[in-house]
Structures are given as structure tokens and as C-alpha cells.
């Protein structure tokens, strides 16, 4: 019994930062189950075209959080390497979506054209990411300030790309990106999140990127003196975030089959940063756990869906969300953690004394 106890504690010590987000997610689930036992039931139905699709609150949470989860992955990298946050992700996604639609509008929509559109918008978003990254790494501007530039003008650039219109496209392929692939019941955005997750997992597994990111984030100068190209690592983090923005921009465009530069993924930058923080990552850079950020993204979406299910109007949701966020971060704050730590130690001491007696 002692052995299992030891193994358990070492797992939690290793992943202690995941404790608070996991507990929060569990509380949300339990709360929903008490409120409505059928909340998480999933059913297989046929949509208008006769294809089988999954439906239910759980699927809508997983589906709705897709863009946020992808952005949170990229944001984790930038946060870890630079110790700051990118506030231009929503604008970058809008730019990417505009480029995507612009390419699709250029001719008859074939699978190759869609692929070309995705490639083009990834390229553009990665270039903008490199612009942010250059400001941060070469000119040593605070990330939030550097990305304030694109935050100010990004949506206008998206507007400009499409010449002041909100164009729509009629295409089954684009529809499939934001909805369901015919014949496959799981929504495509969920699959894209899984693909991105696998991409990052492989990247961390087979390269030293993860270690380099953390080294640069913990101490930039020490990392540089140890032969790590700190400028390049930071730049790479921003370029990867650009890729994430492009992917989530394509998903968001696919959902509506139109791009509205003003409303596409509006305010998502704040939610993405929040997801990183809820996942237990320090916003000051250094060590990170990408899975934490993804869990954070799902917590945010689950919270929103729960509030909607409780008939809270969409504009009021923010206020309730704020209260839950504050509770979460207070639980995860260093002072409260220390207090819990000392309590646990006291209990342990008391327990060992009892044993000795």
C-alpha cells in the first residue's frame, strides 16, 4: 500500500500544475451532471444530407473549443519562450481567413485550390508571426507591446485584403472543414485539434525544441551562453503560433463559409491567454505543459456552454466567467499553494507523531 501511495504522490508532484485545472474540469462535469443528468448524453443522428453525425453537449464543447485549443497550444510556446503573450492571434486568424477566402475566390473550387489556399494562409500568417517574433527577439520589445501593432491594425489588413467586403464561398470542401466530413460522425475541427496535438507531440518527441524553449524562457542569457540560439528559438515560437492562427482561422472560416473581419474569432486572444494561465503555466515564461493549456481551453468552453445551458444571455456570460476565473486563479496562486503545502506538511508531521506514539 505504501508503494502505491508513493507512486501516486510522485505522479502528482510531477504534474502538480495540472491538478487545479483537472479538479476544475471535474467540478464542472459534476456540477452539470447534478443539474441535468442527461447533460453529457451523446446521440448519433442523421443530418439533412443523410450522413451520420454525433450530437450532444459534450460534442459541442469539444467542437466549439477547437480554435481556442489550437491557439492555446501556440500561445503556450510563445509564453514559455518569451515570457510574454501575443495579443494579435485573433487578428492574425482574421487575416489568415481572409487570405484563404481570397485564394478560393480566384477560381473554381477544387481540392487542390483549397489545399493551395490553406498553404497560402499558413505562409502569410507565419510571415506575420515572424514579424512579431523579430520585434520580440531581435529588438527585444516586450511581446505584448510588439503584438499590439498587429492588434491595432490586423483586422483592418484583413478588411483590406478583401477590399472591404465580407465574401462568402459555396463549397462542400470548405463546409467539411468547419463541420462534418461526409460519412464520418466526428466533427472535423476536433480531428484537426487531434492532428495539431500529434504534430506538436512529435515535434517535442523528436527535437530538442521543448527543452530549448524552456531554457530560453527561464534565462535568456544563460541559454545563449550555453550555445542555444535564443533569437532563433523565440522567432520559431512566434512562427509556430502563426501556423496555429492560420489553422484556427481556416476552421472559423469553414464554420460559416464566410469571413467577417470584424467578428471572426473576436476577443479570442484573451481566452487563449486565459487558457494558458488556467492550465497552470506561468505567464512569466519558462516551464510549460501544453496539455494544461488545452485542458484550460476546454474548461473555458465547458464553462461557456454550461452558462448558456443555464439560460444566461450571451452578453452576460462574461461576468459569471470572470468570477469563476478569479476563483480558479486564486486556487492556483502561489500564496494559496504555499498555504496548502504548509497545511499538508503539518498534517504529515502530526501523522508521523501519532505513528511514533
Amino acid at each position, binding site marked *: 500500500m505504501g508503494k502505491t501511495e508513493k507512486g501516486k504522490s510522485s505522479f502528482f508532484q510531477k504534474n502538480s500544475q495540472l491538478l487545479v485545472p483537472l479538479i476544475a474540469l471535474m467540478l464542472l462535469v459534476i456540477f452539470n451532471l447534478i443539474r441535468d443528468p442527461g447533460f453529457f448524453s451523446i446521440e448519433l443522428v442523421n443530418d439533412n444530407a443523410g450522413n451520420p453525425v454525433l450530437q450532444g453537449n459534450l460534442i459541442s464543447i469539444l467542437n466549439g473549443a477547437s480554435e481556442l485549443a489550437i491557439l492555446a497550444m501556440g500561445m503556450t510556446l510563445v509564453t514559455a519562450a518569451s515570457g510574454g*503573450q501575443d*495579443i494579435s492571434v485573433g487578428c492574425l486568424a482574421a487575416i489568415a481567413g481572409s487570405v484563404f477566402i481570397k485564394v478560393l475566390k480566384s477560381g473554381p473550387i477544387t481540392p487542390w485550390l483549397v489545399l493551395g489556399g490553406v498553404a497560402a494562409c499558413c505562409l502569410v500568417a507565419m510571415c506575420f508571426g515572424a514579424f512579431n517574433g523579430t*520585434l520580440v527577439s531581435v*529588438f*527585444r*520589445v*516586450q511581446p*505584448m*507591446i*510588439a503584438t*499590439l*501593432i*498587429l*492588434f*491595432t*491594425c*490586423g*483586422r*483592418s*489588413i484583413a*478588411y*483590406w485584403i478583401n477590399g*472591404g467586403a465580407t465574401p462568402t464561398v459555396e463549397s462542400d470542401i470548405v463546409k467539411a472543414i468547419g463541420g462534418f466530413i461526409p460519412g464520418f460522425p466526428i466533427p472535423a475541427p476536433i480531428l484537426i485539434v487531434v492532428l495539431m496535438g500529434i504534430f506538436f507531440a512529435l515535434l517535442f518527441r523528436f527535437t530538442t525544441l521543448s527543452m530549448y524553449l524552456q531554457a530560453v524562457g527561464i534565462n535568456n542569457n544563460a541559454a545563449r551562453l550555453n550555445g542555444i540560439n535564443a533569437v532563433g528559438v523565440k522567432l520559431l515560437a512566434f512562427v509556430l503560433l502563426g501556423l496555429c492562427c492560420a489553422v484556427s482561422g481556416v476552421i472559423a472560416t469553414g464554420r460559416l463559409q464566410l469571413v467577417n473581419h470584424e467578428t471572426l474569432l473576436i476577443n479570442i486572444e*484573451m481566452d487563449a*491567454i*486565459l487558457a494558458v*494561465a488556467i492550465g497552470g503555466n*506561468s*505567464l*512569466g515564461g519558462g516551464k510549460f505543459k501544453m496539455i494544461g493549456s488545452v485542458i484550460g481551453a476546454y474548461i473555458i468552453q465547458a464553462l461557456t456552454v454550461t452558462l448558456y445551458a443555464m439560460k444566461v*444571455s450571451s*452578453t*452576460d*456570460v*462574461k*461576468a*459569471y*466567467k*470572470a*468570477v469563476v*476565473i*478569479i476563483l480558479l*486563479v*486564486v486556487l492556483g*496562486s*502561489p*500564496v*494559496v499553494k504555499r498555504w496548502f503545502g504548509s497545511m499538508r506538511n503539518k498534517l504529515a508531521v502530526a501523522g508521523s507523531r501519532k505513528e511514533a506514539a
Partner: protein
Amino acid sequence: MSGIRFPFPRKDREPITDTTLLMSVTIGIFGGLYVAAMLVFGGGFLKPQQIFTMLNENAFLIIISCSLTVVMITGSIDISVGGVTALVAMVDVMILNGKLWPQAEMNDGTRILCAALMAIGIGLAFGAVQGFLVAHLEIQPFIVSLAGMFFARGMITIISVEPQKTAGAIKTMLEQRIEIPWLGSPNKKGVMIPAKMEIGVIIALVIVAAIYLILRRTRLGRSFYAVGGNQQSALMLGINVRRTRFMAHLISGLLAGIAGFVFMMHTGAGNATNATASEMNAIASSIIGGTLLTGGVGNVIGTFFGVLTLTTIKNIVMSSGLTKPWWQSITTGAMLCFFILLQSVLLKVRTTLQSRKEGAEKDRIGD
């Protein structure tokens, strides 16, 4: 190696600080921009009213930029100010048009006083809660103020979904303008129109002066710089770091509340989309004015000129015929980029020069 010796050697003066350097650059650029606009576009830019219009429209932005300057000097950040401004504007309008506490018998003066007190109260409440969370629970200020922003924006629609307006005697009372005849300019018929200034501008200017004095002349102000410069050193100097950070957020909240009152005086309406993205404008103004997000460097006078510079850029874009809706923010972004790069390069060059000078002095001592 000694240079040429003058008969009256200049005493080694203290080199100007980063704060002063960045601020003077901003003021210089603002002056240059404005004079260039006067020469190129003439027209509106030649009238003194142009400056007063800029001030009238941006009085609330000046106030929340001051609050951000204080917070940023302390090395923290507060992005809830825009939300608090909008919330206060909404609550105040509802007090003034009698939707809030309709049964209470109050005359117009009392209602305005009530609204002002409410503004200060809401601001202080936001400041105190955020300050406590940031300073005493050591939670990241970005997240705390983000939650503050969400809360304020959500509360607006919980209080009232429909936009609210002031009306009647109170509206005219709020719309009083201070007229300055000697700065007037003739209109098309040749009649002199006096320059008009809103009361909110006076409040904003008083606040700029007060914050300047607090930062420069009081112990609290100096500890803001110390804490922002290096928290560890400040602690070792015996500065109460927690209390200082708390006070910075408290002041920020208070100013946001006052900004809400000024905003309400300017627009006379409460709406869920009031002051959208103004927190980012305020951050941009502070940066243009020479405040560094890393803390320890900054000045409200610079911030004041930062707001004016941003507005001047927007005015220039409008008068230069780039009327397509996207040009305004694209040029603002480009200017922001220019300022940020300029600051980065200036500080880098300065550091290199200083270290070279120190190196030279060391060599001389070595001789």
C-alpha cells in the same frame, strides 16, 4: 588620453534619465507632426479649436492612460480600465435619468453628486479587489485585470441591455462648455466663434498634474519607480512592495472610475460597446509617451503627449484623403511600430554608449 581642457570645465551633470529621454523624443515628434500638419493641410489644424476638440474627445483616454502609466511604472498591468469606464458611464447615466433608484427624491444637483460618488466608489472597488489579488495573492496582473474587464463588460448588460441616455435639464447641465473667446476663430460668415472646452478636460488636466506630482514628489511615487525597476532591490531598501503594488492598482481603479464619469459627461449615453478597446489605446499612448511595460520608466507628461500624438496621426490620416476605413488603423499600427522600434534602438544605443564611456573611464583610472 585627456581631451582639450577648457578654462572653465563643465561640472559633470547627471545624465538625463531614460524617462526624460523617451518623453522628450515623444514631445518632439508630436510638435514636428503637428507643425507639419499645419504647413501641409492648413485649414482645421491652424485653428486652436482643433487642439480643444482633440482634448474634448480624448479627456477620458488621457485619464485612463495616466492610470496605465502608474501601473506600468510599477511593472504591472491593468487592462480592466476600459471596461470599468464603460460600466461607470452606464451606471451614472442610469442614476441621472432616474432608472436607478427611481423612488428616491433627488434634485438634479444631488443626482450628479450621487453619480460622481458612485463613479469613484466603483473605481475604488475594482482597484481594491484587483490590487489585493495582484499584490497579496501574487496572481498575474494580466489575468486579474482580464477577469476584471470581463466582469465589468458583463455587468453592463446585466444592468441594462438597452442603451441609456440622459435627458432634460441634466443633459444641458452636463453639456456646459467653457468658452475661451481669445482663442476663437472666425467662421465662414466672419463671426468669431470662441474656443470651447469641456469640463472633463479640466478634470483630465488636473489629474495629469496630480499624478505627475505624486510620481515626482512623494514617497509613494518614488517607491512606484523602485518597485517597477527591481522588486528585489526595492524590498531590500525597505519599501513595502505589496502595499506599493496595491496602491498602484487602487489609483488605477480610481482613475478609471473618474474616466467613466468624464466619458459620461462627453457622450451623455450608456452603452455596452462604450470605450471598446480603449485599454489598448491607453497602453499604446503610454508606450508612445515613453513608459516601458517592463516597469521603472515612465512619465505622465509623456503619456499626455502620447494621447495627443495618436489623435494627431488619426486626424492627419483623415485629412490626407485616405478615407477608406482601413487606412486609419493601418497607419496607427505603422506609427506604433515606428515608435516601438525607435525606443528600442534609442535605449540600445544609449546603453552601448554608456558602457563604452564607463570602459574609457576605467582605462583612464588604470593609467
